[in-house]
């Protein structure tokens, strides 16, 4: 950082040209306790603005959190409807596999029966 006025003696501290005149510096110092914005001191105004902005942020954050919670709960509801249960599907799969095996067994049985039936004629005529 570079100072615009490197030497304090270059600051005009008083209304006159006398070196020890500090009337301007005193007036500047007075600003701290003077009503400069909306009937308030700069510090009061700063504090009030910070309070208002802080309240707004806090309100907006609470609203965002509420909306987020709503969204989360909706998502969960949706998932409970559209989502698949891996365990349920695995159980189903097992069931279908068993059904398939059973059906395949029946087919095998029919096939064996037909095969046996067809050999009946062959042995008597042969």
């Amino acid at each position: 950082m570079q100072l615009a006025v490197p030497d304090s003696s270059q600051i005009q501290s008083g209304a006159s040209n006398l070196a020890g005149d500090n009337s301007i510096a005193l007036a500047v110092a007075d600003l701290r306790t003077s009503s400069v914005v909306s009937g308030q001191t700069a510090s009061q105004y700063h504090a009030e603005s910070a309070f208002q902005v802080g309240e707004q942020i806090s309100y907006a954050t609470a609203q965002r959190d509420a909306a987020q919670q709503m969204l989360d709960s909706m998502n969960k509801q949706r998932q409970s409807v559209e989502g698949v249960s891996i365990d349920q599907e695995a159980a189903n799969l097992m069931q279908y596999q068993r059904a398939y095996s059973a059906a395949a067994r029946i087919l095998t049985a029919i096939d064996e029966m037909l095969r046996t039936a067809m050999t009946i004629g062959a042995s008597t005529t042969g």
Partner: protein
Amino acid sequence: MRADLSLTSNLVDAIRNAKETQDEAIQQLSSGKRLRSISDDPAAAAQLIGLHSSSAALDAYTAGTATVRARFAAADSALATGVQLATRAVSLAVSGSNGTVSAAERQSIASELQGVQDQLLATANSQFNGRYLFSGEADSSPAFASVNGAVTYQGSHPATVEIADGVQIANGQAGNALFGSDGSNIFDALSGMIQSLSSNSSPQNSVAALQSSLNQLITKRVSYGSAMSAMDDAVTSATDSKQRVDTEQNQIDGADMTTAASALTQAQVAQSAASAAFSKVASMSLFDYLPR
């Protein structure tokens, strides 16, 4: 049950919450401050801004008053020398007024008085940090100048300094209030006396003038002592106020270290529990039990 996905998302939430709590606790422990943003507690933030402003003003008053006080101490010690010189001058004048004193003795008293006058002028033009102590606001030039034997005041009235809220004091005394106005100052009294003695006459009239100049110097010097004790009081009171402001700031913004530390531990436990549960749940499914 179809809540597989929401179960994992619940665990992710739990882990995220635990991390947030940890971050907050670590922030509080490392900074010692409770508030991270003005939205954490807007009313407290507003109070802190006011307190910060008071605190800065108190620091400025303390530092500024120390500078002024150093200047007053230098001035007071210069005035102590001035009072000594003036007292010496009065006693010389009294012995010079004695009827039995010879012309030669008067001559030697006159030359000694000349020396006293020179020293007194140098004292009245004392400097501190390159500024003349008794020139009022015009402190870049000497308070008194001797032109053709007449010593006149070159300065102005003293500036005002603020040592506490609404407490303003004069930045010392003007040289002409201490050493007398032009035409009737202590230097004129000394010159008159030196003239009388040199012409071998009794400096009777000048003795009274010198005595009253000395009294004026003594009286006015007292103001430096009382101003310095006022400054000491102001600094003491500023230090007390600063302490109160610091305490109040700490009450508003100071983190409760014990609470923060235990919150951190709890959050760490919660995070590792949720992470462990996550790894279990994520790896667990009926498929693991199906023959491949």
